[in-house]
């Protein structure tokens, strides 16, 4: 008699379902971003080197025009945070487009796990891997340009940072769903969303320099309020240059975190159905 158990595996193996399956999916999708990303040393080097070039250029611009030294600190912090924005653009929003190009998207849809868990894994993995790079940029920039920090409250700082990340990656999950419908234009849209966001979100200067309504509109990007709050918490002149108080910004970030993550789950479900109906999951329109 043929021993089927050696072919099919032990019959008593427990299948993961529900929450366990989702958790395993999150870990599995986060794994390549956390572990795999560190294996390619050139990525680690360029992920720190490229933002440092931009940081250095803007630091020297500020020094050339005689800016106060804390503006150098603003640039270093802003430069570190650009790593997260680029990760959201290229590794969250555009990720499903890359998967479609490589033929993995259909496999994700066919697998018995939820797409939301996959996106969550991407978000968590991206957050962790990018966090290492952002920390490297921050430390390098601070040492190179002699930036001094005076943290008012570590608890508030940690809260602001985590809420900013949750809201930001929630937004990334929303746009990842939207990009399910796109093809080659996805690359161009992500490319377009770099400099304009650096400008309106005040990566390199206080957002309070803009009028109230422009700054308020820009606050839809979580990094706008997150950066503003971080600057108020780590630089002595931060509060004087802040847009809103730290408390108000924390509350706004809480609301954004909830809204973006919930919206992401609805958008994903709706847009997945739409993409399946219109046959966009496997198209490769170059």
């Amino acid at each position, binding site marked *: 008699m043929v021993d089927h158990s050696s072919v099919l595996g032990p019959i008593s193996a427990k299948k993961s379902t529900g929450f366990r399956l989702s958790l395993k999916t999150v870990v599995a999708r986060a794994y390549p971003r956390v572990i795999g990303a560190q294996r*390619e040393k*050139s*990525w680690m080097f*360029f992920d720190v*080197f*490229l933002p440092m*070039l*931009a940081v*250095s*250029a*803007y630091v*020297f*611009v*500020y*020094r*050339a*025009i*005689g*800016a106060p030294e804390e*503006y150098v600190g603003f640039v270093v912090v802003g430069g570190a945070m650009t790593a997260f924005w680029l990760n959201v653009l290229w590794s969250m929003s555009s990720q499903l487009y890359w998967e479609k190009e*490589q033929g993995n998207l259909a496999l994700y849809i066919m697998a018995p796990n939820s797409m939301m868990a996959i996106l969550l894994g991407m978000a968590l993995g991206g957050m962790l891997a990018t966090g290492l790079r952002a920390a490297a940029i921050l430390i390098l920039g601070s040492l190179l340009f002699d930036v001094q920090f005076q943290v008012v409250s570590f608890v508030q700082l940690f809260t602001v940072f985590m809420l900013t990340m949750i809201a930001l990656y929630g937004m990334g999950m929303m746009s990842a769903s939207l990009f399910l419908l796109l093809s*080659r*234009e996805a690359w*161009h849209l992500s*490319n*377009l969303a*770099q*400099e*304009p966001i*650096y*400008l309106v979100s005040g990566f*390199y*200067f*206080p957002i309070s*320099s803009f009028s109230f309504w422009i700054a308020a509109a820009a606050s839809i990007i979580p990094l706008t309020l997150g950066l503003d709050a971080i600057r108020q918490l780590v630089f002595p002149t931060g509060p004087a240059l802040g847009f809103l108080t730290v408390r108000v910004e924390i509350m706004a970030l809480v609301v954004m975190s909830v809204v973006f993550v919930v919206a992401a789950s609805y958008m994903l479900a709706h847009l997945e159905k739409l993409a399946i109906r219109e046959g966009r999951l496997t198209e490769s329109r*170059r």
Partner: protein
Amino acid sequence: MSSTGVASPGEDIDSRVSGRGLWRSFRTASWLGWQIESNWTDPFLFAIYSFIKPISAAAILVVMYGIITQGDFESPIFTYMYLGNAFYIYVGAVMAGVSWAVIDDREHYKTLKYMYVAPINIPMYLFGRGVAKFIVGSISVFITVVFGMLFLHLNIELTAVNWPLFFIALIIGVVMLALMGLILAGVTLLIAHHVWFLGEAVAGALYLFSGAIFPLEVLPPAIRWIGYIIPITYWLELIRRALVGSVAEAFPTLSNLSNGQILGILIGLTIFFGVLSVFVFRWAEKQARERGLIDMVTNY
């Protein structure tokens, strides 16, 4: 030539290196590059895309400058910074654009091997692929400069511009950037797709060391010398002198050199990089053929 009009073996000219062959390779690649750059969306959205990106990049510097100097846009440092930033768009467009064509064709469209099989000249093909980026870059530069003149009091008197110097410097600069792009293209032939940021990294490094947005004197002395061996430094200086002569006098970096001397240095460095690009690209191409990398697909 035989009566059928077909060249006999002894008379066969390699069309890849003949004048007509070079022009054909360049012309066809230019057309192809433009199709790729522009046909992903309708013209209106493409126009918005071409407008928003350069204006936003310039606006970051303008806002930074405006905050610190309380809006002193009459100062020569603003003109220096703005023009340098505007024309630096060509560096990313042309230099990175020529090298990007290797990745685009090899990894995305998987047609590079067919290019090598076709009767075209590969370096001219790569230059042609850079033409579309040059056109888009030119539009961006034009929009940025006009925006500065109209809304930011950018001090350019059209009647006072040294147009011959401007166009000569521009043409030499674009050729210089294309040749540097060929060097990068050669290196790109040998490396995996995930090093798409090579062009960006080099452009970013040159941004820092070429005095594009701040005078070289701001750099620490230990690294300032790098700016003096980069042709882009002299190119941008010539462009500024052609457009707004008085700006150059406000900064000591190259003030002891005349226009003719700077032009001579730029031409000399362009020739140097031209020769270097030929050797580097030939060597890299040979390595890529021997190691079977022409049709490499890395899928990172």
